[in-house]
C-alpha cells in the first residue's frame, strides 16, 4: 500500500546533505520553475488538488490565489513547522531526513506568490530538528539556492528560521504570526485573513511543511501525475503517523482514500497483542473518535471523514484497544487543551478548565449524571464561539467521547454513588 513520493529520500543515507540530495534530484526543478509564469505555477498547484496538510485541508493553490493584487506591500510566506498536535509526527521526518525537499518547495511557492522573505516557524522543542534545518538552509545559501539570485535566476529569496517557545497555540496560523512579530502568541480575530493582512500587516501565506514539501513533485511531474494517487477530492499522498496499540507503530506514506481498518491491519500490523479494538482517533487528538463500527466504511480522505462527522486532521491515527479507560483519556485530553489555551477568550480559558474539573470530579467518584449533561452543554456553549478553534479542538472530541462512551462515564458515577452510600451506611 505504501508509496514513496515525499519519503523517497527518507531511507537514503545522508539525504539531508545537499550533495546527496542533489544526486537524488533535489533542486533539479528550478530551471523549469523559472521558465514558467508565476500564475502558471499557481494554476498547476490548483489543478493538482493539493490540500493543506496542517489539519484544515484547505486547497493550497486556492489559498495562494486569495492574495490581493497590486498592493504596494511585500508578500510573506510562513511555513508552519510547529507540529504540536498530540499524535502528529510527520513534519519532523521531512525536517530531518529531507529538508532540501522543503526548501525547494519554499522556492516554488515564493516564486508563485511573489515572496522574497520566507519564515519557517519551528516548534521550540524540536532542538535537533532545528539544527538539521538550519544546516540545510546554510548549505542552500552557500550553494546559491537561496539569497540574492536563486540558482542564478533573477529572483531574490531569504529564508529565516524562527523558533517557538513551547506553546501549542503558536501552531494556529495567526498566533504564529504574532509570535514571529515578537508578541505573545495569541490568535487574531478573522477576518482579516492572513492572505490579506498577515505578518506585519502584509499579505501572508501560511502553509504546513508537508504541503510545501509536496510542491517539487507537482512541478516535476505535473498535476495529473499527482492526481493519480488518492481520490478525486483528496488527491495525492500523505505521511500518516500511526500510534497507540498497534504492532508496528510508525510513519507511513500512503495515498489518500485507503480504508482505515485495512491500514491498521495491513500496514501497522494490527492491534497490539491481538487485543480487541475499542476506538480510533483518526487524525490527531482533536478529531472526534470513531468506534470500530463507525470505522467500517471509513476511508483515509477528507470526504469520508466529513461524512463520518470527524476530520482528516493531520494524519495522526491513534489506535485504542479494549483496555483504554475513556474517562481517563478525556481527562488527559482536557488537561492538554486547558493547559494550551492562550487565555484570551472567556469560554476557552474558563470553560476548558471546567471541563477538566468536572471530568476529574467524575473520576473521583463525586460526579452525577447531571454533570455529564453539563459537560455536553459546556461543549455546546464553547465550540465555535471563540476566536480560534483550539477550544473546538477540545470540545469536538470530548463531545464525541461523551456521546459514544457515555456508559463509561455513568459507570464512574454509579461506582462513586455506591461507594458513598457504603461510607454512609458504615
Amino acid at each position, binding site marked *: 500500500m505504501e508509496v514513496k513520493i515525499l519519503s523517497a529520500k527518507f531511507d537514503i543515507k545522508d539525504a539531508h546533505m545537499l550533495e546527496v540530495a542533489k544526486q537524488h534530484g533535489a533542486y533539479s526543478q528550478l530551471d523549469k520553475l523559472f521558465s514558467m509564469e508565476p500564475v502558471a505555477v499557481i494554476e498547476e498547484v490548483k489543478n493538482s488538488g493539493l490540500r493543506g496538510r496542517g489539519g484544515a485541508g484547505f486547497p493550497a493553490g486556492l489559498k495562494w490565489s486569495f492574495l490581493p493584487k497590486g498592493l504596494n506591500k511585500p508578500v510573506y510566506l510562513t511555513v508552519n513547522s510547529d507540529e504540536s498536535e498530540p499524535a502528529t509526527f510527520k513534519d519532523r521526518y521531512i525536517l530531518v531526513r529531507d529538508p532540501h525537499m522543503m526548501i525547494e518547495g519554499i522556492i516554488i511557492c515564493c516564486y508563485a506568490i511573489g515572496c522574497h522573505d520566507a519564515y519557517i516557524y519551528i516548534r521550540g522543542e524540536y532542538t535537533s530538528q532545528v539544527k538539521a534545518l538550519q544546516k540545510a538552509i546554510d548549505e542552500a545559501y552557500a550553494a546559491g539556492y537561496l539569497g540574492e539570485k536563486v540558482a542564478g535566476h533573477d529572483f531574490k529569496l531569504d529564508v529565516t528560521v524562527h523558533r517557538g517557545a513551547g506553546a501549542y497555540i503558536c501552531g494556529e496560523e495567526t498566533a504564529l504570526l504574532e509570535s514571529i512579530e515578537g508578541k505573545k502568541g495569541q490568535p487574531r*480575530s478573522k477576518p482579516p485573513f492572513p492572505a490579506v493582512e498577515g505578518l506585519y500587516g502584509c499579505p501572508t501565506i501560511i502553509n504546513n511543511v508537508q504541503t510545501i514539501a509536496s510542491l517539487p513533485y507537482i512541478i516535476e511531474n505535473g498535476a495529473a501525475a499527482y492526481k493519480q494517487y488518492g481520490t478525486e477530492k483528496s488527491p495525492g499522498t500523505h505521511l500518516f503517523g500511526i500510534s497507540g496499540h498497534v504492532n508496528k507503530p510508525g510513519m507511513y506514506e500512503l495515498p489518500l482514500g485507503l480504508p482505515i481498518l485495512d491500514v491498521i491491519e495491513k500496514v501497522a500490523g494490527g492491534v497490539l497483542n491481538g487485543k480487541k479494538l475499542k476506538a480510533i482517533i483518526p487524525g490527531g487528538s482533536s478529531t472526534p473518535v470513531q468506534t470500530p463500527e463507525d470505522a467500517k466504511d471509513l476511508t483515509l480522505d477528507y470526504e469520508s471523514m466529513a461524512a463520518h462527522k470527524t476530520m482528516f486532521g493531520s494524519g495522526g491515527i491513534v489506535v485504542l484497544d479494549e483496555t483504554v479507560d475513556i474517562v481517563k483519556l478525556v481527562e488527559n485530553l482536557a488537561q492538554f487543551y*486547558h493547559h494550551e489555551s*492562550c487565555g*484570551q477568550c*472567556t469560554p476557552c*480559558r*474558563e470553560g476548558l478548565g471546567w471541563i477538566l474539573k468536572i471530568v476529574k470530579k467524575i473520576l473521583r467518584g463525586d460526579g452525577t449524571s447531571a454533570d455529564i449533561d453539563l459537560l455536553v452543554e459546556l461543549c455546546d456553549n464553547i465550540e465555535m*464561539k471563540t476566536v480560534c478553534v483550539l477550544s473546538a479542538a477540545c470540545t469536538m472530541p470530548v463531545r464525541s467521547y461523551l456521546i459514544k462512551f457515555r456508559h463509561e462515564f455513568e459507570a464512574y458515577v454509579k461506582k462513586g454513588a455506591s461507594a458513598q452510600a457504603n461510607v454512609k451506611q458504615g
Partner: protein
Amino acid sequence: MDELIMVKINGMDVHFPKGKTILEVCKDAGIYIPTLCYDERLKPHGGCRLCLVEIKGKPVPLTSCTTPGEAGMEISTESPKLTRLRKTILELLLSNHPNDCMVCEASGDCSLREMAYLYGASLDRFQGEKWNLPIREDNPFITFEPNKCIACGRCTRICNEVVMAGTIDLVNRGFNAIPETAFAKPRSLKNCEFCGQCVSTCPTGALTDKKGRGKGRAGDIKKVKTTCTYCGTGCNFFLNVRNDRVVRVTSDFEAPVNKGNLCIKGRYGYDFIHSDERIKTPLIREGEGFREASWDEALSLVAGRFNAIIKEHGPDKVGGFSSSRCSNEENYLLAKWVRCAVGSNNVDNCARVCHAPTVAGLAQSFGAGAATNSLEQMSDIDTIFIIGSNTTEAHPIVSLYLKKAISKGAKVVVADPRKIWLAQRADVWLNMKPGSNIALINGIIHVILKNGWESKEFIKTRTEGFAELKAKVEEYDLDRVEKLTGVSRDKIIEAARLYSQAEKSMIVYGLGITEHLTGTENSMATANLALVCGQVGRPSTGIMALRGQNNVQGASDLGPLPATLPGYQSVTDPKCREKFGKAWGVTIKDKPGLKSVEMLDECAKGNFKALYILGEDPAHTDPDLHHIRKALDKIDFLVVQDIFPTETTKYAHVILPGASFAEKDGTFTNGERRVQRIRKAVGPVAGLADWEVLCKVSTLMGYPMPYTHPSQIMDEIATLVPAYGGISYKRIEKKGIQWPCPTKDHPGTTTLYTETFARPSGLALFMVLDHVGSGEVPDETYPLVLITGRVREHYNNGSQTRHAVGIIDLVPEELVEISPEDAQSLGIKNLDWVKVLSRRGEIKVRAKVTKRSQTGNVFMSFHHQSTLTNVLTSGHRCRISGTPEYKSCAVRIEQLSQE
C-alpha cells in the same frame, strides 16, 4: 460622502456608513449588546465573547465587536440561545471571582455585576477553586486586585496600543492568564507613565485608583464634568465629589479631545485643590510678614491704593498681568478692568513668556495666530514633523494621537536637540544645535525647491512673496546648513522628502520654537515650510502649535494684551477703539501699553508704580530671576492673586486667595481653539471666585461690574469678539466649539484656511528669514548650552503638582540631564551633586547622566521651588514678541565634592 448601507437588527431597518462593526452600528442605534472586552479606544479584540449575535445564514453566532456590518445582514442581538451562551460565559467568569461586591471599590460601576444581573447568572453551577492572589499596591496610583481580574485584556491593550508604554501584558496561558509587568517587577517600573488609562478601562474592580479608595463609590458621588487645568490640550473629565471634596477624577469617554484618556497630572494631580497650603483668606503685608484680613478690608485697601496711585502718577504707571491658568471670562474681565477702571493699556498675560511668538508669527504668515487644525486629525497624518516639542511629556494626550498615527504607519521627522521618546522612534532625527531652527528650515526648503518637491499650484494660487523666499533660501545650501545646525545633509534631504512628498503632513511644534531670540521668526519659518509644500488648509495638515497651559489660547484671545483688545482688535484702529469704547462706556487709549517684561523693566527703574498679578509667578518662572526680584522689590503696590503662596506672593502688599478650576464656572479655550466649560464642583476655599473678586475691585474703584454669573460675561464676549460670536454656555454644555464660530448656528471650525487665509489679500505671505542663532552661545567659561523644559509629571512652577500625593514622591527634585560624554569629562556620576553656573547665577542640583542629552547640551526643568532654574536663564528675548529665550543659555557645570 460614505455610502450608506442597510441591515436589519431585531427586525428593524438600520442605515449606517460602510466600515462600521455590528457593535458600533447597534451602539449608534441605541441597541444594547453586552460587552466586557470592548473599549472604543482600542482595536476590536473579540475575547470576552459576550457580544455574540446571530446573523441569518451564518452557522454560528459571531462577535459583533469584530464583525463588520454588511448590506442585507439580518441580525438578532437577543435570543434564548444567546442568553444561554452569555449566561454560561458570565457564570464561568463568576466561578473565579470573589463575591465581595459589598465592599468592592467598583460597586455601582462594574460591568460584570451589571451583566450578571441582566442575564441572571447564578453562582451555583460552577463552584470550585478560585484564585487567591495578594492585592498589589506597588504602583503609587493604582491598586490591583488580581482576584477580581477577568482577563479581558483591556488594560494591557490600552497600555500597549494607545499609550505605547508597554508596562503590562497578559502573561501566562489559559486559566493563569493575568495582566502583569515583565518578570513581575513592581508596576512603578520606569516605563509606566502613571496615566491610569488601564484603570479607566477596567470593567471590574480589579484596577482602581489608589488615592480614591474608601472615599466614596459610584452611588455616593456627584460627578461634575469639567476641563483639565493643566496643559493646553483641553481634556475633559469628571471630578468625583463627596461632601464638598474632590475624591477622584474619572474619565469622560465622550470627551472630544481625549476620549477618556488622561495623563498623570489630569488624573492624579487633583490633591492641590484641598491642600492645607492653599491661601484661604486675604493677607495684608505687615512689616516683613502678612496678617489675615477680611475680604472687605482687603478689597477696599486694594481699590483705594490703586485709585490713589492712578491719581498721583497717572494710569500709565499702573497695569495688570493676567493668567492663562484663569478662565476666559476672568481674562476678559482683567483686560476690561485695566482699560476701564485703571484707564491704561498696560495689560499682558503669561503667553508673553511662551506662545506670544505663535500669535505674532502665524498671524503675519496666515492671518491668525492659532493652531490651524484639530488634534483629532493627527491620527491620520502621513508625515509628522515635530520640532521643538517633547510631545510625549509636555502634551501626553496629544502624543496619543501621534502614537496612533505612528502605529498606522506615519513617517516621523523629529527636529530636537534632545533624543526624546519620539526621536528614538523617528524615521529621521534632526539633532540640531539649539537656536538653529531657521537655518534648518531654510535648508529643508532649499532641498525641496532644488528637487522640485514644492507644490507649485498652491504657491501660485494661495500665497504671495514666493520670489523673495526663493532668493533667500538659495543662500542656504547644505554645506552651510550642516555647519549652522550640526545636522548631516542626508538627514536634511530625507526630512525634506518625507515632509514634502506625503499626502498629508503636519508640523507640530512647542516652546522649542517660540522661546528663542528668533521665536516669532521661527514660527514664521514653519509657516514658510508648510506653504511651500501646500501642507496647510486641509485636514491632517497645517501647523499645530501646542499650548503649554490650559488657557493660553483663550488668554490671548480675550484681550489681556497691550496692543490689542479682546479678539485681537487693535488699539491703534479707531474703529475697534470706538466699538469697545461704546460697549464699555470709556475712552480707550490709542497707544499700545507695555508688555509684561517691559512693565517689569520699568519697575526695576522705579518708573512703574502698581501692578495686579492674577495667577502668575514671574519670580519663579521668568528668566533672569535676579532682575525680576529687583523689579518687584521696587514697586509701590503689588497685588497678587493666587491659590498658593509663590515666589511672587513674597513681594506682594496684598495677597488675594484665588479659586481653583474646581471652584468656579467658566470656560477655557484649548490649543485647537475649542471653547470648553469648567464647572464649579466645590465651593471656593476663600468664598469668592476670581471673577467675583475682579468685579468687586472694579466696582469699588468706581467702574461697576455687576455680573452675577460667568455666562453673562461670555454673552458679552460674544457680542464683541467675532470669532466667539456664536458661543454661549448653552451651546457648549455637552461639547466645546472650535472658533471661529461667528454666529449662533455656526458649527465651529475644525480646519482653518481651507479656502482663503485670514490676511487682507486672502493669500498667505512668505516671510524672508535669516539665521541669527541664540542670544547667548557657549564659550570657554560657559561651554555648555542649557535647555529648559518640562517633565511629564510636573507642571510649570510646580505649585499644583508638588501638592499631589504620589507625583511629588515620583519626581521629588530637579535633576540636570547631562550626556555620558560630558559627565565623564567632568568626572560626574549619575545622581552626583553638581553646581550649574551661568553669567547670572548658580544653583546646586543633582545630575542625571542620560543619552537623551547630546554632548554639549544639558537640560533642566523649572518645576521645583527648591531649585530655581531660572536663576540661570538669560535676559535675551524674542526680538519681536519679547518672549524670553528659555531654550538656550550658556552654563558651566562643576562637580561638588560628595557630602
